[in-house]
């Protein structure tokens, strides 16, 4: 009984190659059934995300040949495709899965989405009946390791993109974003990405204002918000919680003098301003006002860079923690293998 992991990932192939190996969710059940029909395969699981397609196999065949299996599974394959495939034996497979579930093999180090993807892949395989004792145990252990790494280290802490950093800060100021009023000023690419980040975190009261009203309407419709004419955006300021500004204005459009009378009416309600414009849309002196927090592109990028640095340092701690879990699993695997090949006592007939 041998565990193998083979497949393709963002570390071994670019997106053009990866997309040829990807297995869509709709084809997952059928793919698992076909995989389980390969004669030497005892247990199988297929993990397919945008960054990786990996096969976890338990087989009696110690020298399981990759090429025929892949040709049989995918049908037509290009000769160069095999250069991008990786193949890991038992213990490295276990280590690899634990690292994948912990987000250590992800393109964005420490991201947590992969944990859910691994979980869904396992559930699909369990439903299809292609997992058995070994893979069940291996994946349960992987979920335990993923949770342990997440809670015991800072690998998932903070954010590493400008949009996510802005959302994190907003949540540390306001808590839940559902009832918060957010205005996107300028419908450029960066502000659009930030608007999507807010929308994905539950923000529902989104307003978009842009010099081109048509463009504002288009973005507002996409994110489920409301478009506001550019000459009217200041009227909305009084009830605003978050302002994402990214206009092409050559000078500051939000100044201390403009804000002071508005803030008096707001009665100490916090205001979070994300200034993504270059040159900046917000006068730096606004940040000195009570209950107003202004973050420009540089400060957001600096936080993202610090988080990434922390995560890289934490990856070493994670490695040591994972190694202990790998050793535990190896002990269990060896014991299970010994039991499987233990001679059955034969009762000798009396002479």
């Amino acid at each position, binding site marked *: 009984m041998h565990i193998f992991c083979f497949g393709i990932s963002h570390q071994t192939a670019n997106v053009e190659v990866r997309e040829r190996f990807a297995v869509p969710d709709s084809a997952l059940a059928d793919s698992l059934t076909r995989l389980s029909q390969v004669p030497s395969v005892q247990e199988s699981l297929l993990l397919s995300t945008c960054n990786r397609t990996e096969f976890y196999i338990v087989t009696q065949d110690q020298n399981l040949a990759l090429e025929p299996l892949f040709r049989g599974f995918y049908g037509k394959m290009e000769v160069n495709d095999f250069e991008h495939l990786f193949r890991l034996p038992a213990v490295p497979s276990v280590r690899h899965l634990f690292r994948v579930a912990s987000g250590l093999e992800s393109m964005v180090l420490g991201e947590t989405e992969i944990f859910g993807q691994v979980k869904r892949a396992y559930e699909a395989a369990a439903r299809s009946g292609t997992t058995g004792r070994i893979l069940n145990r291996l994946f349960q252990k992987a979920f335990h390791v993923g949770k342990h790494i997440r809670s*015991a280290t*800072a690998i998932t*802490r903070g954010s590493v993109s400008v949009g996510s950093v802005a959302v*994190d800060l907003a949540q*540390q100021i*306001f808590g839940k974003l559902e009832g918060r009023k957010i205005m996107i000023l300028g419908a450029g690419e960066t502000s659009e990405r930030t608007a999507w980040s807010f929308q994905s975190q539950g923000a529902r009261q989104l307003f978009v204002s842009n010099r081109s009203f048509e463009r504002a309407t288009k973005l507002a419709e996409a994110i489920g918000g409301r478009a506001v004419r550019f000459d009217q955006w200041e009227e909305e300021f009084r009830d605003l919680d978050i302002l994402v500004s990214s206009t092409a204005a050559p000078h500051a459009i939000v100044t201390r003098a403009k804000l002071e009378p508005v803030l008096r009416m707001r009665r*100490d309600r916090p205001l979070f301003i994300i200034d993504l414009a270059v040159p900046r849309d917000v006068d730096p002196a606004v940040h000195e006002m*009570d209950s107003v927090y202004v973050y420009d592109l540089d400060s957001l990028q*600096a*936080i993202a860079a610090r988080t990434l640095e922390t995560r890289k340092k934490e990856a070493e701690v994670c490695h040591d923690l994972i190694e202990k879990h790998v050793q535990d699993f190896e002990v269990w695997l060896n014991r299970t293998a010994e039991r499987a090949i233990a001679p059955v006592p034969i009762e000798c007939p009396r002479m």
Partner: protein
Amino acid sequence: MNWSDRLWVELALTSYLTGFGYSVYSLATEKFLTPRVTFWAICAGFLFTTVYLFDRGHAIGRCPITNRFEVMVFMTWSMVLIYLVIGSAYRLSLMGAFTAPVASALLFFAFTLSPGESVVRRIKVNPWLEAHTSFSMVACGAFALACIAGVMFLVQERQLKTRQPSSIFYRLPPITALSIVNSRLLWLGFSLFTVGLATGFLIGGRINWVQAAWSFLVWCVYGGILTARVRHAMAAKWLAALSIVAFSLLLSTFWGIRFISDRPSL
């Protein structure tokens, strides 16, 4: 104070110190350990002080605030009681990490005090005196917790203003929640203190004017802070800072007033 009384308070102090030590270790090493350990350590400390206060109250037949030691333990108990109610209601992660050291410091301070004259026999109890002292003490507990919420608010505010959020920033509650909690705790403390002050006039007998003046001054300070907040929309930052200043004043003047006063109650 007999050895078993002392034991319960020592156990409570040990529990609070355990919670505090665990939080410090978690924050210093950035291991992000579960805050539940701190929470349960505080619960254990609360239980031990409850047992002590119950035993003591049973023995003397009245609310156990008859000497400096008991007053300190009762104040700690009140503060932790409010933390347990507020903390779980608002799910204020890490508030325990700030509450445990204050509780430890108050109990440690209690041990450094000479207990003074203590009532050991059942005496005729004046219900107004009981109400006055207990309301005032629980109000002090609320003010203490408002002070803690104020410290947490200022930590968050500083990190936001310097634009350099550290790991503690993401573990503290949102600044808006801290501002609301700070404000509500001040209101709670102020309301309880007002009831305590009012019942003080119903005790009867000779009025201790030194203590009455001090209580009125405390009432005015907190009343002034809340008026500034409501009438003039004082910034949350100033509310947090003033709740720290006011509680520090309350705590430091409390012992001076008791020293020059000859009455056992507040």
